[in-house]
């Protein structure tokens, strides 16, 4: 029972980070049909942002640095995203596979930038003091860092939810996601909405980068490790579906945590992959674009 609960906890915290990375992907994919392979590098940028701020503020202000890093990483990630959208992705509209490949080239360049600036070896980010320790509930020790991550993702999720549901900008986002042409014809300035979506999605990746620093060291290829899993979340969850992404992330996180406990990490990965292929046999609907009249 304790093992069940502790794996549940670990699974949820992993799912939270996955979700944060996947949210940006699912929005840009759902709205613009863009697969951004450099998204993982935005996570990396967020993580290095934390590292830089800690270095600048010094050892005495670790907590402040960490808290400052959260909004700043959002801005850094968002800014990178907007630049990428403006310089490259806009020019590739209607060519999703080429976009995927070109953004991968960008990912390669960004990784090399990180390697040249911060060195090829990993760097450590210190967790703020208030996250030291753990709380024990029902015999399960839950570290504050993981609890913090879950809470952080909860807050982000609530903010997104409110933004999509209540604000005019969020409504425009949803409109473009559901029917781009109709939204454009109704006077929505779609390029602007696209930029905004990209900013928010990439910003969330930056925030995820800050969260990741709590779990381990930071290196140039940090993003790649999360990207594939996040994409699988998008595939299972369905396009641009917030609820789908949440469910898929939790399912994948928990599955990994439990199978990993029973066997080992590599078997868990392979099993998760097999499970997704099996899942597609029963529910490809989440994947296939809505059927339209005719064949286009």
């Amino acid at each position: 029972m304790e093992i069940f609960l502790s794996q549940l906890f670990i699974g949820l915290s992993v799912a939270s980070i996955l979700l944060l990375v996947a949210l940006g992907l699912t929005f840009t994919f759902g709205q613009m049909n863009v697969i951004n392979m450099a998204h993982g590098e935005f996570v990396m940028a967020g993580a290095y942002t934390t590292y830089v701020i800690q270095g600048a503020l010094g050892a005495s202000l670790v907590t402040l640095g960490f808290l400052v890093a959260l909004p700043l990483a959002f801005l850094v990630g968002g800014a990178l995203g907007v630049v990428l959208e403006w310089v490259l992705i806009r020019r590739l509209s209607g060519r999703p596979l080429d976009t995927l490949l070109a953004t991968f080239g960008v990912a390669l360049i960004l990784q090399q930038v990180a390697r040249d600036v911060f060195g090829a070896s990993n760097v450590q980010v210190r967790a703020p003091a208030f996250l030291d320790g753990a709380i024990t509930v029902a015999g399960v020790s839950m570290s504050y860092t993981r609890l913090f991550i879950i809470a952080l993702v909860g807050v982000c999720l609530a903010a997104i939810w409110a933004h999509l549901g209540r604000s005019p900008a969020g409504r425009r986002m949803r409109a473009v996601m559901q029917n781009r042409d109709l939204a454009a014809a109704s006077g929505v300035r779609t390029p602007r909405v696209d930029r905004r979506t990209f900013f928010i999605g990439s910003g969330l990746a930056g925030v995820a980068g800050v969260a990741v620093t709590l779990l381990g060291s930071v290196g140039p290829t940090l993003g790649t490790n999360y990207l594939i899993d996040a994409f699988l979340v998008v595939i299972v969850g369905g396009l641009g579906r917030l609820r789908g992404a949440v469910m898929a992330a939790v399912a994948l996180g928990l599955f990994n945590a439990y199978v990993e406990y029973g066997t080992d990490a590599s078997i868990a990965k392979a099993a998760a992959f097999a499970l997704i292929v099996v899942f597609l046999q029963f529910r490809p609907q989440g994947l296939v674009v809505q059927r339209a009249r005719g064949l286009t």
Partner: protein
Amino acid sequence: MSRLAGTLAAGDARWGFLIRFLVVAAAMLLLAPAVLSDFRLSLLAKFLCFAIVAVGIGLAWGQGGMLVLGQGLFFGLGGYSMGMYMKLEEAGPGQLPDFMVWSGVESLPAVWEPFRHAWFALPMAVLLPMAVAAVLGTLVFRQRVRGAYFAILSQGLAAAFVIVLVGQQGLTGGTNGLTNFTQLFGLDLTAQANASILYTMVALGLLAVFLIARQLVASRYGRVLVAVRDSEDRVRFLGYDPTRIKVVAYTAAAGMAGLAGAMFVPIVGIISPALLGILPSIEMVIWVALGGRAVLAWAAGGAVLVNWVKTGLSERFPSGWLYLFGMVFVVVIAFAPKGMAGIGEYVRAGLGRPGAVRLGPRARDRATARDRAAQEPA
């Protein structure tokens, strides 16, 4: 009259191809071993292995529109099949491969057992990847998972494969992979002089693979494959099962990658996860993108050229090489999706071949239509 002209033109194209093919084959089989040092020849042999993978990618992606981001898996299956056989051959009957002894494995795992025999291991290097691709392709394509979804899935597959390889140390040699090979069929792999034998083997393999792929592309099947890329749903309503059409190309590409992997092992002397993961797999696609996805010969040429440049530059300017590689890749994908093949076409059009001049505006229309159609299907 027009029919006669058509037949003649078709005949011309065939002769032109035959001449070009023979020239390249002669250069590869006769010229290269004569002028290149053993070291360079062995390097070229490695690049030709990559070219075999590239031909497969040209078939699946360039012709069939399936962006295969996980060819490392098939390359690896071929490579490990070969590597397992070579390890067991060297260990001798009843003995364990060296790395198993080091990691404390006491008896040979059952998976390894059949790979003692060349008659099993060598065909498996090609058949195993093909079987995996056929099963996976059928499952995935049948559910109409395509485009970016398929790309990501295929990439995830390669990633999962690598994780398993690294995780199952005792079974696979872990991060180190399989290495320390000394001989194959009594051929001393450490002797530089044997480089030309291995090289000739790979060159013949590439030529054969190229002919197979070209036949697939030029046949009616090739036309249907392009049709599937343009509009899979429309093909369905012409009475074809797109799943089957796609699975054939995907499986062929997997078999080619497997063959390349199997040949790679004796030449380079190692097969390890670092050669197969996400990055190496996508690099394989990059070769094809730079060479020219739509033209098989250019896809193969891209693999050789990129790797040749990489060998020259990456050691002297490791960081600069990556910037250059990334930049060139982004620019080519975004602004010259036809790759080097497109540059060749452009130059030829600029020189004004007599045919192009005679056709005049019509040829131009045709060229623009092709450009338009070359865009990815949404």
